[in-house]
């Protein structure tokens, strides 16, 4: 697939940056156009893979933002995107849309810029183009608190209603002991970039290598066509004895694995991809459609294995709409399986976020109601005897 990508806010921008880095490292060619949008000048400078003219600062003339971010306020995030929509459109004019299959908008839903501005950008894209617009959204973890949950719950509604498919990523599922903040976010971004790029870049490498079982962009788009929320699973295994390759530092590499991969291994890989950490935990059987991409050297992808893996997923996902295909990577030293579960409707984490958001909204409204009164009573003595100076 060929994509035009837009990262909105800090999390979204870093994700796009990481995706470009990953595709560059692995010789893929997915993101034909990339653009990052942010309300904070400092954060806008962070992505390393994008040119200066592919970064758009919005809200620098807005009274409350002024290029310093929106302070986690989604309302201001939406406001500044609305105000500066012409600026965004102008930069997007450079994109030759007929060259791409779809547009991907990435954002963190807990912050103010991503949750507020991204839906505005998506609206505009849907107006301008016929191509599908996909969303890639990072859901805040429980411990990020009530305000991010409220931002996310509200933004999720806008996202799911506006995009052709929403790929969710749950921060909580990727939190582990011993990480520093820096490592934590970097690792998560890497994991997510690996999954997204491996999935969507299928069929875009060397035209001569396209085999009969090769995955095609249209297959992926058809699977995503369901709308709703999707989750991605991933597992990889080493297929060369030498571990010195570029990808040797991959997680989940099975160290004992050195012989060629047979059918059982292929099936095992898919089973692992589906049962291991999905980008958002969900009941697999609630999926509407599913798709498996095998990325690796063509000679290790056993046809029998692919078919039995597909059948297994058909049962697990309780749907007959399961596609499986290859993404031949002759020079790769790993074999990876990516499982896309499209339109999963049973995602406990989203329910949790919604509950947390309702509580947060109630608390915020309670505070708003008594704020002025409480300040007045604090600064006024009991009998109101004291007068202000001026």
């Amino acid at each position: 697939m060929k994509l035009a990508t837009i990262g909105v806010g800090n999390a979204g921008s870093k994700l796009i940056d990481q995706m470009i880095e990953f595709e560059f490292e692995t010789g893929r060619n997915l993101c034909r156009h990339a653009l990052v949008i942010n309300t904070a000048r400092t954060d806008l400078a962070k992505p390393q893979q994008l040119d200066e003219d592919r970064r758009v600062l919005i809200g620098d003339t807005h009274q409350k933002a002024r290029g310093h971010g929106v302070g986690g306020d989604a309302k201001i995030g939406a406001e500044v995107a609305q105000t500066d929509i012409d600026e965004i459109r102008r930069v997007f004019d450079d994109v030759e849309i007929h060259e791409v299959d779809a547009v991907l908008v990435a954002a963190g839903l807990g912050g103010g810029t991503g949750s507020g501005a991204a839906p505005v950008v998506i609206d505009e894209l849907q107006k301008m183009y016929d191509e599908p617009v996909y969303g890639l959204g990072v859901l805040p973890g429980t411990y990020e608190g009530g305000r991010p949950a409220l931002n996310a719950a509200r933004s999720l509604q806008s996202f799911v209603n506006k995009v052709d498919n929403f790929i969710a990523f749950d921060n909580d599922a990727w939190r582990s002991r011993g990480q520093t903040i820096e490592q934590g976010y970097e690792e998560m971004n890497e994991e997510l970039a690996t999954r997204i790029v491996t999935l969507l870049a299928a069929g875009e490498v060397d035209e001569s290598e396209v085999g009969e079982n090769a995955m095609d962009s249209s297959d992926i788009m058809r699977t995503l066509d369901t709308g709703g929320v999707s989750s991605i699973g991933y597992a990889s295994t080493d297929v060369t004895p030498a571990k010195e390759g570029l990808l040797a530092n991959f997680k989940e590499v099975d160290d004992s694995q050195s012989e060629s991969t047979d059918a059982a291994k292929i099936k095992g890989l898919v089973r692992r991809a589906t049962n291991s950490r999905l980008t958002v935990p969900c009941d697999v059987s609630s999926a509407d459609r599913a798709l498996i991409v095998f990325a690796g050297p063509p000679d290790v992808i056993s046809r029998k294995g692919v078919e039995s893996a597909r059948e297994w997923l058909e049962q697990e996902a309780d749907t007959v709409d399961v596609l499986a295909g290859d993404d031949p990577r002759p020079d790769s030293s790993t074999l990876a399986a990516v499982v896309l579960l499209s339109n999963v409707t049973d995602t406990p984490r989203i329910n949790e976020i919604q509950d947390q958001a309702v509580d947060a909204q109630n608390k915020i409204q309670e505070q708003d109601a008594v704020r002025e009164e409480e300040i007045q009573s604090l600064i006024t003595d009991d009998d109101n005897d004291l007068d202000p100076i001026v």
Partner: protein
Amino acid sequence: MKVALLGVGGCGTRLVDQFVRTEHRTGRSVTNGNVLAFHTESQPLSQTTALSTDQHILLGDTHPAVLRRDTNSPATDSPNSSHDPQLQSETSTTTSKQGASSNSRTREYDINEYGVGGDPDVGAQVAKAERPEIRRALDKIDETEVAATMIVAGLGGGTGAGVGSVLLEELTDIYETEVYTLGVLPADTESDQRALTAARGLRTLVPRAASTLLVDNDSWSRDRDAVADCYQSINQMTVDRLLSVFGAGEANTTFESELRIDPADISRTLAVGGVTTVGRATVEIDSNAHGLLARILRLLGRSQPSGSTPVDASKIKTLISRAVQSKLTLPCEITSADRVLLILSGPPDTISRKGFETGRYLLEEETQTVEVLAGDEPIQNTTELTATVVLANVTSVPQIDELQRRAVPTEDAVTTTSGPSTTTEQTATTDEMNTQTVEPSADADSTSAEFDFTNAETASETTDSTEQ
């Protein structure tokens, strides 16, 4: 966040001076030279070390009610004006000014009778009369360079509370950006007069300022003989915390912060208005684990400050908990906080994500608000991890209640003595009657003890016209 600092009065001037010094020492840049000090008395201005003379603004030197330190003090023929104020008796100060004799306020040792003599109404009149001078001075502030402006003042002082109130009025009229106030509340050992000034100052400043950060001298001066002895340490504590909050993200560092505190995070936290207080806690990072060589390298600045072992998550959670439970600049009931901001500063490779997130969640539970913004500030070459917690719009503050309790009888006493033929023996109810009914007398212009707004206006107009 870039902030312009405007010190007002003695306390404000000292704080701002110390702030700039600390900025220079720590390499953090918050003010960018956008600093001014306003006072009605020249000595505190001349005692600053980090401010240049064009950042000193002496107000009221032609105002009849202002006592100048030099001998050619206009409109006063007081024989005491050239003497050391500390040697002057309490009674002589009240008679040292024209018009002041009709208003015999209780003057105590902690009132500096130079300048406006501790009278906030005189302070306000002086500032109103000198609006053109104030505006000229404000031209030195580049509003486009800063995200906000902060007035720094001791609220017990006549200049701090009086000039500060008018300055705030002026700034909120002309600036598009937020104007904050940092106020220092007088201790219990300071005079009732100062308590009254501070209580009235709060009533004036809090509704108008975008947010009012308060420092309570009383809680920070306990177990000491006099507040004056610990001015220095209270000021340093205040400056350190201010820098932790507004300096976050402004240090010159090559490290990128993952969860940077944006100026918008700070302004959103403070946007609820009201009274704000700040807590802080620091923990030493255990560096022994990395061996002697690593320590030497670190001393030489040749290695990462603490290797790559993150500080245990529970330790960070404890640190954040300590910060919110610590002695706040103004002690308060933390559950009354409206919005909260957490800044964790330290070597970037030590801040555990899990600890950070659980700590933030803990803040949400302890303060009972969901509006908690949090960020980290990577600092190289430090062995300390610091958590700074801003509690915005706290509404349950015992010390403010206490100030009001002291202020009300003081105000009654003042109005009593200023009213015609009333004595202090009269009951409080009569005093209140007087407050309302006493007509402003013609000669009670600048030092009138009436707190009636229209009266103050009249007085300032009088002053204006005499100036012209």
